[in-house]
Protein backbone atom coordinates (compact mmCIF):
# COMPACT_ATOMS: atom_id res chain seq x y z
CA UNK A 1 0.00 0.00 0.00
CA UNK A 2 1.27 3.40 -0.78
CA UNK A 3 1.83 5.73 2.08
CA UNK A 4 0.20 8.73 0.44
CA UNK A 5 -3.25 7.18 0.07
CA UNK A 6 -3.29 6.49 3.76
CA UNK A 7 -2.79 10.10 4.65
CA UNK A 8 -5.80 12.08 5.53
CA UNK A 9 -3.89 12.86 8.76
CA UNK A 10 -5.56 16.26 8.93
CA UNK A 11 -4.63 18.29 11.95
CA UNK A 12 -7.44 20.37 13.34
CA UNK A 13 -6.98 23.99 12.42
CA UNK A 14 -5.33 26.19 14.98
CA UNK A 15 -8.61 28.03 15.54
CA UNK A 16 -10.44 24.80 16.38
CA UNK A 17 -7.69 23.69 18.75
CA UNK A 18 -7.60 27.10 20.40
CA UNK A 19 -11.35 27.01 20.90
CA UNK A 20 -11.11 23.57 22.48
CA UNK A 21 -8.43 24.81 24.82
CA UNK A 22 -10.51 27.82 25.89
CA UNK A 23 -13.43 25.60 26.77
CA UNK A 24 -11.28 23.19 28.75
CA UNK A 25 -9.28 25.75 30.69
CA UNK A 26 -11.66 28.32 32.15
CA UNK A 27 -9.08 30.07 34.35
CA UNK A 28 -6.68 30.42 31.46
CA UNK A 29 -9.43 31.75 29.23
CA UNK A 30 -10.48 34.30 31.85
CA UNK A 31 -6.89 35.49 32.33
CA UNK A 32 -6.38 35.78 28.62
CA UNK A 33 -9.63 37.70 28.25
CA UNK A 34 -8.63 40.07 31.06
CA UNK A 35 -5.21 40.73 29.55
CA UNK A 36 -6.71 41.27 26.10
CA UNK A 37 -9.16 43.71 27.65
CA UNK A 38 -6.24 45.58 29.23
CA UNK A 39 -4.49 45.81 25.88
CA UNK A 40 -7.64 47.12 24.21
CA UNK A 41 -8.10 49.63 27.02
CA UNK A 42 -4.48 50.74 26.69
CA UNK A 43 -4.85 51.26 22.94
CA UNK A 44 -8.20 53.00 23.08
CA UNK A 45 -7.59 54.99 26.28
CA UNK A 46 -8.29 58.47 24.80
CA UNK A 47 -11.68 57.31 23.52
CA UNK A 48 -12.74 55.28 26.54
CA UNK A 49 -11.73 57.56 29.38
CA UNK A 50 -14.38 60.08 30.40
CA UNK A 51 -11.79 62.79 31.08
CA UNK A 52 -8.27 63.65 30.02
CA UNK A 53 -5.76 62.36 32.58
CA UNK A 54 -4.58 65.88 33.28
CA UNK A 55 -7.93 67.67 33.36
CA UNK A 56 -8.44 69.23 36.76
CA UNK A 57 -11.76 69.68 38.52
CA UNK A 58 -10.99 72.31 41.15
CA UNK A 59 -14.41 71.98 42.69
CA UNK A 60 -13.86 68.31 43.47
CA UNK A 61 -10.38 67.66 44.82
CA UNK A 62 -9.78 64.38 46.67
CA UNK A 63 -13.43 63.60 46.05
CA UNK A 64 -15.14 60.37 47.03
CA UNK A 65 -16.30 58.09 44.21
CA UNK A 66 -19.49 59.54 42.70
CA UNK A 67 -21.55 59.46 39.52
CA UNK A 68 -19.42 62.24 38.12
CA UNK A 69 -16.05 60.74 39.09
CA UNK A 70 -16.56 56.95 39.31
CA UNK A 71 -13.44 56.36 41.34
CA UNK A 72 -13.09 59.81 42.84
CA UNK A 73 -10.42 62.42 42.15
CA UNK A 74 -6.85 62.97 43.28
CA UNK A 75 -5.28 65.86 45.14
CA UNK A 76 -5.24 67.98 41.98
CA UNK A 77 -8.83 67.15 41.10
CA UNK A 78 -7.96 64.73 38.30
CA UNK A 79 -10.33 61.84 37.58
CA UNK A 80 -8.87 58.61 39.02
CA UNK A 81 -10.80 56.35 36.64
CA UNK A 82 -9.47 58.22 33.60
CA UNK A 83 -5.95 58.16 34.95
CA UNK A 84 -6.23 54.43 35.59
CA UNK A 85 -7.22 53.88 31.96
CA UNK A 86 -4.47 56.10 30.65
CA UNK A 87 -1.93 54.47 32.96
CA UNK A 88 -2.59 50.99 31.58
CA UNK A 89 -0.43 51.53 28.52
CA UNK A 90 2.72 52.62 30.35
CA UNK A 91 2.35 49.91 32.97
CA UNK A 92 1.96 47.14 30.40
CA UNK A 93 4.69 48.59 28.21
CA UNK A 94 7.04 48.69 31.19
CA UNK A 95 6.29 45.12 32.22
CA UNK A 96 6.62 43.64 28.72
CA UNK A 97 9.76 45.62 27.96
CA UNK A 98 11.55 44.45 31.10
CA UNK A 99 10.54 40.82 30.72
CA UNK A 100 11.24 40.87 26.97
CA UNK A 101 14.78 42.07 27.64
CA UNK A 102 15.19 39.48 30.41
CA UNK A 103 14.09 36.65 28.09
CA UNK A 104 16.13 37.79 25.11
CA UNK A 105 19.28 38.10 27.21
CA UNK A 106 18.77 35.40 29.81
CA UNK A 107 17.60 32.46 27.71
CA UNK A 108 20.45 32.34 25.15
CA UNK A 109 23.04 32.94 27.86
CA UNK A 110 21.66 30.14 30.05
CA UNK A 111 21.37 27.80 27.09
CA UNK A 112 24.97 28.29 26.03
CA UNK A 113 26.31 28.05 29.58
CA UNK A 114 24.42 24.85 30.31
CA UNK A 115 25.15 23.15 27.03
CA UNK A 116 28.79 24.05 26.57
CA UNK A 117 29.80 23.43 30.17
CA UNK A 118 33.46 23.77 31.12
CA UNK A 119 35.06 27.19 31.36
CA UNK A 120 32.30 28.86 29.32
CA UNK A 121 29.79 27.77 31.93
CA UNK A 122 32.11 28.77 34.74
CA UNK A 123 32.64 32.29 33.36
CA UNK A 124 28.95 32.86 32.65
CA UNK A 125 27.86 31.45 35.98
CA UNK A 126 30.17 33.79 37.89
CA UNK A 127 28.71 36.77 36.02
CA UNK A 128 25.21 35.53 36.79
CA UNK A 129 26.03 35.22 40.48
CA UNK A 130 27.43 38.74 40.53
CA UNK A 131 24.39 40.20 38.81
CA UNK A 132 22.03 38.23 41.03
CA UNK A 133 23.50 39.94 44.07
CA UNK A 134 22.36 43.29 42.65
CA UNK A 135 18.95 44.56 43.71
CA UNK A 136 16.99 45.37 40.55
CA UNK A 137 15.84 48.76 41.70
CA UNK A 138 19.30 49.90 42.75
CA UNK A 139 20.77 49.05 39.37
CA UNK A 140 17.85 50.72 37.61
CA UNK A 141 18.48 53.83 39.69
CA UNK A 142 22.14 53.77 38.73
CA UNK A 143 21.37 53.26 35.05
CA UNK A 144 18.83 56.06 34.93
CA UNK A 145 21.42 58.20 36.69
CA UNK A 146 23.90 57.46 33.92
CA UNK A 147 21.61 57.35 30.89
CA UNK A 148 18.93 59.80 31.77
CA UNK A 149 15.63 59.49 33.52
CA UNK A 150 12.81 57.78 31.65
CA UNK A 151 10.62 54.72 31.68
CA UNK A 152 12.39 52.97 28.80
CA UNK A 153 15.92 53.20 30.18
CA UNK A 154 14.70 52.27 33.65
CA UNK A 155 12.87 49.18 32.43
CA UNK A 156 15.75 48.12 30.20
CA UNK A 157 17.87 48.14 33.32
CA UNK A 158 15.26 46.17 35.24
CA UNK A 159 15.16 43.65 32.39
CA UNK A 160 18.92 43.24 32.52
CA UNK A 161 18.75 42.65 36.25
CA UNK A 162 16.03 40.04 35.74
CA UNK A 163 17.90 38.22 33.01
CA UNK A 164 20.28 36.24 35.27
CA UNK A 165 17.29 34.68 37.01
CA UNK A 166 16.09 33.29 33.71
CA UNK A 167 19.62 32.41 32.63
CA UNK A 168 20.13 30.39 35.78
CA UNK A 169 16.85 28.60 35.28
CA UNK A 170 17.58 27.76 31.65
CA UNK A 171 21.10 26.66 32.53
CA UNK A 172 19.84 24.28 35.19
CA UNK A 173 17.27 22.74 32.85
CA UNK A 174 19.80 22.56 30.02
CA UNK A 175 22.23 20.64 32.22
CA UNK A 176 19.54 18.00 32.60
CA UNK A 177 18.24 18.03 29.04
CA UNK A 178 21.63 17.84 27.36
CA UNK A 179 22.12 14.44 28.99
CA UNK A 180 18.94 13.12 27.44
CA UNK A 181 19.22 10.25 25.05
CA UNK A 182 17.33 12.08 22.30
CA UNK A 183 20.07 14.69 22.23
CA UNK A 184 22.65 11.94 21.75
CA UNK A 185 20.46 10.41 19.07
CA UNK A 186 20.25 13.71 17.17
CA UNK A 187 24.01 14.11 17.52
CA UNK A 188 24.42 10.70 15.98
CA UNK A 189 22.44 11.86 12.95
CA UNK A 190 24.96 14.67 12.59
CA UNK A 191 22.78 17.50 13.95
CA UNK A 192 24.55 20.86 14.13
CA UNK A 193 24.95 22.75 17.38
CA UNK A 194 22.21 25.32 16.58
CA UNK A 195 19.85 22.51 15.69
CA UNK A 196 20.58 20.61 18.90
CA UNK A 197 20.02 23.76 20.93
CA UNK A 198 16.92 25.04 19.16
CA UNK A 199 15.07 21.82 18.35
CA UNK A 200 16.02 19.54 21.18
CA UNK A 201 17.31 21.43 24.18
CA UNK A 202 15.37 24.70 24.15
CA UNK A 203 11.85 23.28 23.72
CA UNK A 204 12.50 20.92 26.60
CA UNK A 205 14.15 23.52 28.81
CA UNK A 206 11.87 26.50 28.21
CA UNK A 207 8.91 25.46 30.33
CA UNK A 208 10.02 26.83 33.70
CA UNK A 209 11.09 30.03 31.91
CA UNK A 210 7.56 30.57 30.70
CA UNK A 211 6.22 30.33 34.19
CA UNK A 212 9.01 32.43 35.65
CA UNK A 213 8.53 35.07 32.93
CA UNK A 214 4.89 35.52 33.86
CA UNK A 215 5.92 35.88 37.50
CA UNK A 216 8.48 38.45 36.43
CA UNK A 217 5.81 40.38 34.53
CA UNK A 218 4.12 40.86 37.86
CA UNK A 219 7.40 41.86 39.52
CA UNK A 220 8.15 44.24 36.65
CA UNK A 221 4.81 45.94 37.17
CA UNK A 222 5.84 46.55 40.76
CA UNK A 223 9.31 47.69 39.72
CA UNK A 224 7.73 50.23 37.39
CA UNK A 225 5.59 51.37 40.27
CA UNK A 226 8.61 51.73 42.55
CA UNK A 227 10.69 53.59 39.98
CA UNK A 228 7.85 55.92 39.09
CA UNK A 229 7.28 56.39 42.81
CA UNK A 230 10.91 57.50 43.10
CA UNK A 231 10.43 59.78 40.13
CA UNK A 232 12.77 57.83 37.86
CA UNK A 233 10.18 56.16 35.66
CA UNK A 234 7.16 57.72 34.09
CA UNK A 235 7.39 61.50 34.02
CA UNK A 236 4.42 63.80 34.38
CA UNK A 237 2.20 64.54 32.56
CA UNK A 238 2.29 60.82 31.58
CA UNK A 239 0.55 58.46 33.98
CA UNK A 240 1.21 54.96 35.17
CA UNK A 241 -0.33 52.83 37.89
CA UNK A 242 2.83 52.99 39.94
CA UNK A 243 2.86 56.75 39.76
CA UNK A 244 -0.76 56.86 40.90
CA UNK A 245 0.08 54.79 43.95
CA UNK A 246 3.07 57.00 44.64
CA UNK A 247 0.88 60.07 44.74
CA UNK A 248 -2.16 58.40 46.24
CA UNK A 249 -0.48 56.99 49.30
CA UNK A 250 0.07 60.45 50.70
CA UNK A 251 -3.70 60.88 50.97
CA UNK A 252 -4.61 57.35 51.86
CA UNK A 253 -6.50 58.38 54.97
CA UNK A 254 -8.60 60.98 53.20
CA UNK A 255 -9.14 59.31 49.82
CA UNK A 256 -8.10 55.63 50.03
CA UNK A 257 -9.50 54.81 46.59
CA UNK A 258 -6.64 56.75 45.03
CA UNK A 259 -4.16 54.19 46.24
CA UNK A 260 -6.24 51.04 46.31
CA UNK A 261 -7.60 51.34 42.80
CA UNK A 262 -4.25 51.27 40.96
CA UNK A 263 -3.02 48.74 43.54
CA UNK A 264 -5.93 46.48 42.71
CA UNK A 265 -5.23 46.93 39.00
CA UNK A 266 -1.63 45.80 39.52
CA UNK A 267 -2.74 42.87 41.67
CA UNK A 268 -5.34 41.63 39.17
CA UNK A 269 -2.94 41.99 36.25
CA UNK A 270 -0.23 40.11 38.11
CA UNK A 271 -2.65 37.30 38.94
CA UNK A 272 -3.79 37.16 35.32
CA UNK A 273 -0.17 36.91 34.13
CA UNK A 274 0.55 34.09 36.56
CA UNK A 275 -2.59 32.15 35.74
CA UNK A 276 -1.97 32.47 32.04
CA UNK A 277 1.59 31.27 32.53
CA UNK A 278 0.39 28.15 34.29
CA UNK A 279 -2.18 27.51 31.56
CA UNK A 280 0.44 27.94 28.86
CA UNK A 281 2.70 25.50 30.62
CA UNK A 282 0.02 22.85 30.54
CA UNK A 283 -1.15 23.68 27.03
CA UNK A 284 2.33 23.60 25.51
CA UNK A 285 3.42 20.33 27.07
CA UNK A 286 2.28 17.43 24.90
CA UNK A 287 2.82 14.98 27.74
CA UNK A 288 0.18 16.76 29.82
CA UNK A 289 -2.38 16.68 27.05
CA UNK A 290 -5.06 14.02 26.92
CA UNK A 291 -3.82 10.62 25.93
Amino acid at each position, binding site marked *: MSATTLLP*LQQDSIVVRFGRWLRRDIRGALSLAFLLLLIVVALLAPWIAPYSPTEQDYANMLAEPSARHWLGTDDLGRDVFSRLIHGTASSLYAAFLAVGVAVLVGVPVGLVAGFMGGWVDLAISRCIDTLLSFPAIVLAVAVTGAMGIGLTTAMLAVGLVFSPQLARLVRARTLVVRQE*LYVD*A*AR*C*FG*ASLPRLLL*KHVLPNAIQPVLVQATLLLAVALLAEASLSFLGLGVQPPDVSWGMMIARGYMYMEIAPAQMYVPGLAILLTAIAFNTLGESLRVALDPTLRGR
Partner: protein
Amino acid sequence: MSVQQIAAQVTASAAPLVSVEDLRIHFATRDRQTVKAVDGVSFAILPGETFGIIGESGSGKTTLGRALVGLVPPTAGRIRYGGEDLRSLPRRRLRQLRRDYQIIFQDPHAALNPRMTILQSVQEPLEIMREGTPASRRRAALEALERAGLGPQLAERYPHQLSGGQKQRVNIARVLTLRPKFIVCDEVVAALDVSIRGAILNLFAELQQEFGITYAFITHDISVVSHISDRVAVMYLGQLMELGPTAAVTSRPLHPYTAALLSAEPQPLPSDMRTEKRRIQLAGEIPSPLAPPSGCRFRTRCPAARPQCAEQAPAWRELTPGHWVACHFATPAGAVLETDHAMTTTANAEERT
Protein backbone atom coordinates in the same frame (compact mmCIF):
# COMPACT_ATOMS: atom_id res chain seq x y z
CA MET B 1 26.45 -17.17 7.84
CA SER B 2 27.99 -20.35 9.16
CA VAL B 3 30.68 -20.56 11.78
CA GLN B 4 33.09 -21.95 9.23
CA GLN B 5 32.50 -19.06 6.88
CA ILE B 6 33.06 -16.57 9.65
CA ALA B 7 36.19 -18.33 10.80
CA ALA B 8 37.40 -18.39 7.21
CA GLN B 9 36.71 -14.69 6.91
CA VAL B 10 38.50 -13.91 10.11
CA THR B 11 41.56 -15.84 9.10
CA ALA B 12 41.48 -14.44 5.60
CA SER B 13 41.06 -11.06 7.34
CA ALA B 14 38.34 -9.70 5.10
CA ALA B 15 38.24 -5.92 5.21
CA PRO B 16 36.42 -5.20 8.47
CA LEU B 17 33.58 -2.69 8.58
CA VAL B 18 34.67 -1.44 11.98
CA SER B 19 37.96 -2.14 13.62
CA VAL B 20 38.76 -1.28 17.19
CA GLU B 21 42.42 -1.06 18.10
CA ASP B 22 43.48 -1.03 21.73
CA LEU B 23 40.56 1.24 22.61
CA ARG B 24 40.66 2.94 26.00
CA ILE B 25 37.97 5.21 27.38
CA HIS B 26 38.64 6.76 30.74
CA PHE B 27 36.43 9.18 32.63
CA ALA B 28 37.49 11.48 35.42
CA THR B 29 35.20 11.38 38.44
CA ARG B 30 34.48 14.39 40.61
CA ASP B 31 37.10 13.40 43.18
CA ARG B 32 39.73 13.15 40.47
CA GLN B 33 39.80 9.40 40.22
CA THR B 34 39.77 7.68 36.87
CA VAL B 35 37.13 5.23 35.78
CA LYS B 36 38.53 2.96 33.10
CA ALA B 37 35.25 2.08 31.44
CA VAL B 38 36.99 0.52 28.45
CA ASP B 39 40.58 -0.44 28.97
CA GLY B 40 42.41 -1.89 26.02
CA VAL B 41 39.92 -3.58 23.74
CA SER B 42 40.65 -4.76 20.19
CA PHE B 43 38.37 -6.49 17.73
CA ALA B 44 37.03 -6.17 14.21
CA ILE B 45 33.46 -6.39 12.97
CA LEU B 46 32.99 -7.89 9.53
CA PRO B 47 30.46 -6.75 6.94
CA GLY B 48 27.12 -8.52 7.24
CA GLU B 49 27.67 -10.21 10.56
CA THR B 50 25.96 -9.79 13.90
CA PHE B 51 28.61 -9.19 16.49
CA GLY B 52 27.39 -9.87 20.01
CA ILE B 53 28.91 -8.12 23.02
CA ILE B 54 27.93 -9.57 26.40
CA GLY B 55 28.72 -8.19 29.80
CA GLU B 56 27.23 -7.45 33.21
CA SER B 57 26.28 -3.94 34.21
CA GLY B 58 29.49 -2.03 34.82
CA SER B 59 31.46 -3.99 32.27
CA GLY B 60 31.77 -1.01 29.95
CA LYS B 61 29.71 -2.48 27.16
CA THR B 62 27.43 0.53 26.81
CA THR B 63 30.39 2.92 26.73
CA LEU B 64 31.97 0.73 24.08
CA GLY B 65 28.76 0.83 22.04
CA ARG B 66 28.55 4.62 22.27
CA ALA B 67 32.18 4.91 21.27
CA LEU B 68 31.49 2.76 18.21
CA VAL B 69 29.26 5.51 16.80
CA GLY B 70 31.44 8.39 17.93
CA LEU B 71 29.33 9.55 20.88
CA VAL B 72 32.22 9.09 23.29
CA PRO B 73 35.72 10.12 22.25
CA PRO B 74 38.43 7.51 22.81
CA THR B 75 41.03 8.35 25.43
CA ALA B 76 43.57 6.21 23.59
CA GLY B 77 43.55 3.74 20.75
CA ARG B 78 41.32 4.16 17.76
CA ILE B 79 38.25 3.03 15.91
CA ARG B 80 38.42 2.80 12.16
CA TYR B 81 35.44 2.71 9.86
CA GLY B 82 36.20 0.91 6.64
CA GLY B 83 39.81 1.87 7.27
CA GLU B 84 39.11 5.55 8.05
CA ASP B 85 39.63 7.25 11.38
CA LEU B 86 36.84 9.71 12.24
CA ARG B 87 39.21 12.16 13.83
CA SER B 88 41.22 12.65 10.67
CA LEU B 89 38.28 13.29 8.37
CA PRO B 90 37.04 16.56 6.93
CA ARG B 91 33.60 17.65 8.12
CA ARG B 92 31.65 16.80 4.98
CA ARG B 93 33.02 13.31 4.79
CA LEU B 94 32.44 12.87 8.49
CA ARG B 95 28.75 13.62 8.09
CA GLN B 96 28.55 11.23 5.17
CA LEU B 97 30.30 8.50 7.12
CA ARG B 98 28.21 9.14 10.20
CA ARG B 99 25.00 8.19 8.49
CA ASP B 100 26.37 4.71 7.82
CA TYR B 101 27.04 4.08 11.51
CA GLN B 102 24.01 4.35 13.74
CA ILE B 103 22.89 3.31 17.20
CA ILE B 104 19.61 2.22 18.80
CA PHE B 105 19.42 2.74 22.53
CA GLN B 106 18.15 0.66 25.39
CA ASP B 107 15.46 3.09 26.49
CA PRO B 108 13.14 3.63 23.54
CA HIS B 109 11.26 6.40 25.32
CA ALA B 110 14.24 8.52 26.32
CA ALA B 111 15.60 8.33 22.78
CA LEU B 112 12.63 10.27 21.40
CA ASN B 113 12.19 14.00 21.92
CA PRO B 114 8.92 14.30 23.89
CA ARG B 115 8.00 17.50 22.05
CA MET B 116 8.27 16.10 18.57
CA THR B 117 5.63 13.97 16.89
CA ILE B 118 6.60 10.52 15.69
CA LEU B 119 6.70 11.77 12.10
CA GLN B 120 8.93 14.71 13.02
CA SER B 121 11.32 12.41 14.85
CA VAL B 122 11.52 9.91 12.02
CA GLN B 123 12.04 12.62 9.40
CA GLU B 124 14.75 14.34 11.35
CA PRO B 125 17.79 12.37 10.14
CA LEU B 126 16.89 13.15 6.52
CA GLU B 127 16.34 16.80 7.39
CA ILE B 128 19.76 16.93 8.97
CA MET B 129 21.28 15.31 5.88
CA ARG B 130 19.34 17.87 3.77
CA GLU B 131 18.12 15.04 1.61
CA GLY B 132 15.10 15.42 -0.67
CA THR B 133 12.14 17.75 -0.28
CA PRO B 134 9.81 18.02 2.72
CA ALA B 135 7.29 15.89 0.83
CA SER B 136 9.81 13.19 -0.09
CA ARG B 137 11.16 13.11 3.45
CA ARG B 138 7.66 12.67 4.77
CA ARG B 139 7.09 9.82 2.36
CA ALA B 140 10.39 8.19 3.28
CA ALA B 141 9.57 8.49 6.98
CA LEU B 142 6.15 6.90 6.54
CA GLU B 143 7.65 4.09 4.50
CA ALA B 144 10.25 3.48 7.17
CA LEU B 145 7.55 3.43 9.84
CA GLU B 146 5.61 0.93 7.78
CA ARG B 147 8.69 -1.22 7.32
CA ALA B 148 9.18 -1.19 11.08
CA GLY B 149 5.59 -2.35 11.50
CA LEU B 150 3.82 0.91 12.36
CA GLY B 151 0.87 2.38 10.51
CA PRO B 152 0.63 6.03 9.47
CA GLN B 153 -2.11 6.66 12.02
CA LEU B 154 0.64 6.86 14.66
CA ALA B 155 2.62 9.47 12.76
CA GLU B 156 1.03 12.51 14.36
CA ARG B 157 1.13 11.12 17.87
CA TYR B 158 3.65 11.98 20.56
CA PRO B 159 6.02 9.43 22.10
CA HIS B 160 4.16 9.23 25.41
CA GLN B 161 1.08 8.00 23.56
CA LEU B 162 2.87 4.88 22.31
CA SER B 163 3.80 1.61 23.99
CA GLY B 164 7.42 0.64 24.62
CA GLY B 165 7.48 -1.79 21.72
CA GLN B 166 5.99 0.80 19.37
CA LYS B 167 8.54 3.37 20.49
CA GLN B 168 11.39 0.98 19.80
CA ARG B 169 9.94 0.44 16.33
CA VAL B 170 9.92 4.22 15.86
CA ASN B 171 13.61 4.32 16.80
CA ILE B 172 14.30 1.56 14.32
CA ALA B 173 12.33 3.34 11.57
CA ARG B 174 14.21 6.56 12.25
CA VAL B 175 17.56 4.90 11.80
CA LEU B 176 16.32 3.02 8.73
CA THR B 177 15.62 6.27 6.87
CA LEU B 178 19.39 6.67 6.61
CA ARG B 179 19.96 3.16 5.21
CA PRO B 180 22.94 2.60 7.53
CA LYS B 181 25.51 -0.11 6.98
CA PHE B 182 26.08 -0.66 10.65
CA ILE B 183 23.85 -0.37 13.71
CA VAL B 184 24.88 -0.65 17.34
CA CYS B 185 21.99 -2.21 19.23
CA ASP B 186 22.51 -1.33 22.88
CA GLU B 187 20.28 -3.60 24.98
CA VAL B 188 17.47 -2.89 22.53
CA VAL B 189 15.04 -5.36 24.02
CA ALA B 190 16.00 -5.13 27.69
CA ALA B 191 13.39 -2.45 28.43
CA LEU B 192 10.61 -4.27 26.60
CA ASP B 193 8.05 -6.79 27.78
CA VAL B 194 9.15 -10.36 27.25
CA SER B 195 6.12 -10.93 25.04
CA ILE B 196 7.30 -8.43 22.41
CA ARG B 197 11.03 -9.05 22.58
CA GLY B 198 10.81 -11.87 20.08
CA ALA B 199 8.93 -9.73 17.57
CA ILE B 200 11.49 -6.93 17.80
CA LEU B 201 14.42 -9.36 17.50
CA ASN B 202 12.78 -10.88 14.43
CA LEU B 203 12.40 -7.41 12.95
CA PHE B 204 16.14 -6.85 13.38
CA ALA B 205 16.84 -10.17 11.67
CA GLU B 206 14.53 -9.31 8.75
CA LEU B 207 16.10 -5.91 8.28
CA GLN B 208 19.52 -7.52 8.20
CA GLN B 209 18.38 -9.86 5.44
CA GLU B 210 16.73 -7.06 3.52
CA PHE B 211 19.34 -4.34 3.75
CA GLY B 212 22.50 -6.27 4.58
CA ILE B 213 23.00 -4.38 7.82
CA THR B 214 25.83 -5.28 10.18
CA TYR B 215 24.97 -5.26 13.88
CA ALA B 216 26.90 -4.88 17.07
CA PHE B 217 24.44 -6.38 19.50
CA ILE B 218 25.12 -5.38 23.09
CA THR B 219 23.32 -7.26 25.82
CA HIS B 220 23.65 -8.80 29.26
CA ASP B 221 21.43 -11.66 28.20
CA ILE B 222 23.48 -14.53 26.88
CA SER B 223 20.39 -16.30 25.51
CA VAL B 224 19.58 -13.31 23.28
CA VAL B 225 23.13 -13.07 22.04
CA SER B 226 23.52 -16.75 21.33
CA HIS B 227 20.36 -16.75 19.23
CA ILE B 228 21.18 -13.92 16.93
CA SER B 229 24.96 -13.43 16.88
CA ASP B 230 27.46 -14.88 14.46
CA ARG B 231 30.32 -14.04 16.75
CA VAL B 232 30.33 -13.01 20.35
CA ALA B 233 32.68 -11.03 22.58
CA VAL B 234 32.55 -11.37 26.36
CA MET B 235 33.40 -8.24 28.28
CA TYR B 236 34.35 -7.88 31.92
CA LEU B 237 35.46 -4.70 33.68
CA GLY B 238 36.42 -2.87 30.52
CA GLN B 239 38.30 -5.71 28.87
CA LEU B 240 37.49 -8.58 26.58
CA MET B 241 37.69 -12.01 28.18
CA GLU B 242 36.81 -14.08 25.18
CA LEU B 243 35.88 -13.64 21.55
CA GLY B 244 34.88 -16.24 19.01
CA PRO B 245 32.17 -17.74 16.82
CA THR B 246 28.97 -18.03 18.85
CA ALA B 247 28.68 -21.79 18.49
CA ALA B 248 32.26 -22.30 19.68
CA VAL B 249 31.93 -19.88 22.59
CA THR B 250 28.67 -21.37 23.84
CA SER B 251 29.58 -25.02 23.32
CA ARG B 252 33.19 -24.86 24.49
CA PRO B 253 33.88 -21.63 26.40
CA LEU B 254 37.60 -20.98 26.92
CA HIS B 255 37.25 -18.50 29.76
CA PRO B 256 35.91 -19.37 33.23
CA TYR B 257 33.78 -16.20 33.16
CA THR B 258 32.03 -17.25 29.96
CA ALA B 259 31.49 -20.69 31.43
CA ALA B 260 29.94 -19.13 34.51
CA LEU B 261 27.64 -16.90 32.41
CA LEU B 262 26.51 -19.89 30.40
CA SER B 263 25.83 -22.00 33.44
CA ALA B 264 23.79 -19.18 34.96
CA GLU B 265 21.36 -19.26 32.07
CA PRO B 266 18.16 -20.85 33.32
CA GLN B 267 17.11 -24.07 31.67
CA PRO B 268 13.38 -24.42 31.12
CA LEU B 269 13.40 -28.00 32.45
CA PRO B 270 12.61 -29.69 35.76
CA SER B 271 15.77 -30.06 37.84
CA ASP B 272 16.04 -33.84 37.35
CA MET B 273 15.94 -33.49 33.59
CA ARG B 274 18.64 -30.81 33.32
CA THR B 275 21.95 -31.67 31.76
CA GLU B 276 24.80 -32.65 33.98
CA LYS B 277 26.51 -29.30 33.71
CA ARG B 278 27.68 -28.18 37.10
CA ARG B 279 26.56 -24.70 38.00
CA ILE B 280 29.35 -22.25 38.53
CA GLN B 281 28.36 -19.63 41.02
CA LEU B 282 30.20 -16.37 40.93
CA ALA B 283 30.59 -14.87 44.34
CA GLY B 284 30.15 -11.17 44.93
CA GLU B 285 29.72 -8.21 42.65
CA ILE B 286 31.76 -6.95 39.77
CA PRO B 287 34.65 -4.94 41.33
CA SER B 288 34.68 -1.17 40.95
CA PRO B 289 36.23 0.04 37.70
CA LEU B 290 37.88 2.75 39.84
CA ALA B 291 40.22 0.15 41.31
CA PRO B 292 40.26 -2.94 39.13
CA PRO B 293 42.10 -5.99 40.51
CA SER B 294 45.75 -6.38 39.56
CA GLY B 295 46.73 -8.92 36.95
CA CYS B 296 43.66 -10.66 35.60
CA ARG B 297 40.56 -8.58 36.29
CA PHE B 298 38.38 -11.59 36.80
CA ARG B 299 40.60 -13.29 39.36
CA THR B 300 38.68 -12.09 42.45
CA ARG B 301 35.64 -14.04 41.33
CA CYS B 302 37.32 -16.79 39.37
CA PRO B 303 36.89 -20.39 40.54
CA ALA B 304 40.28 -21.26 39.05
CA ALA B 305 42.35 -18.30 40.23
CA ARG B 306 45.99 -18.96 41.10
CA PRO B 307 48.72 -16.69 42.45
CA GLN B 308 49.99 -15.99 38.93
CA CYS B 309 46.66 -14.34 38.11
CA ALA B 310 47.28 -11.53 40.59
CA GLU B 311 50.73 -10.79 39.26
CA GLN B 312 50.37 -10.95 35.54
CA ALA B 313 47.61 -9.85 33.21
CA PRO B 314 46.83 -12.70 30.84
CA ALA B 315 47.71 -12.17 27.20
CA TRP B 316 44.97 -11.83 24.59
CA ARG B 317 45.68 -14.90 22.49
CA GLU B 318 44.08 -16.78 19.65
CA LEU B 319 43.83 -20.28 21.02
CA THR B 320 42.03 -21.88 18.10
CA PRO B 321 41.49 -20.11 14.77
CA GLY B 322 39.16 -17.16 15.31
CA HIS B 323 38.66 -17.95 19.00
CA TRP B 324 40.45 -15.58 21.36
CA VAL B 325 40.76 -15.65 25.11
CA ALA B 326 42.44 -13.77 27.95
CA CYS B 327 43.21 -16.50 30.48
CA HIS B 328 46.57 -17.98 31.51
CA PHE B 329 45.24 -21.49 31.79
CA ALA B 330 42.76 -21.88 28.95
CA THR B 331 43.45 -24.81 26.64
CA PRO B 332 41.85 -25.63 23.31
CA ALA B 333 39.84 -28.23 25.23
CA GLY B 334 37.99 -25.51 27.16
CA ALA B 335 38.12 -23.31 30.23
CA VAL B 336 39.94 -24.42 33.35
CA LEU B 337 37.35 -24.30 36.10
CA GLU B 338 39.12 -25.96 39.00
CA THR B 339 42.22 -25.32 40.90
CA ASP B 340 43.59 -27.35 43.78
CA HIS B 341 41.91 -26.90 47.13
CA ALA B 342 44.55 -24.65 48.70
CA MET B 343 44.42 -22.28 45.78
CA THR B 344 40.64 -21.97 45.90
CA THR B 345 40.72 -20.92 49.50
CA THR B 346 43.41 -18.35 48.78
CA ALA B 347 41.24 -16.82 46.16
CA ASN B 348 38.26 -16.81 48.49
CA ALA B 349 40.23 -15.28 51.34
CA GLU B 350 41.42 -12.54 49.07
CA GLU B 351 37.93 -11.80 47.97
CA ARG B 352 36.69 -11.32 51.49
CA THR B 353 39.26 -8.67 52.29
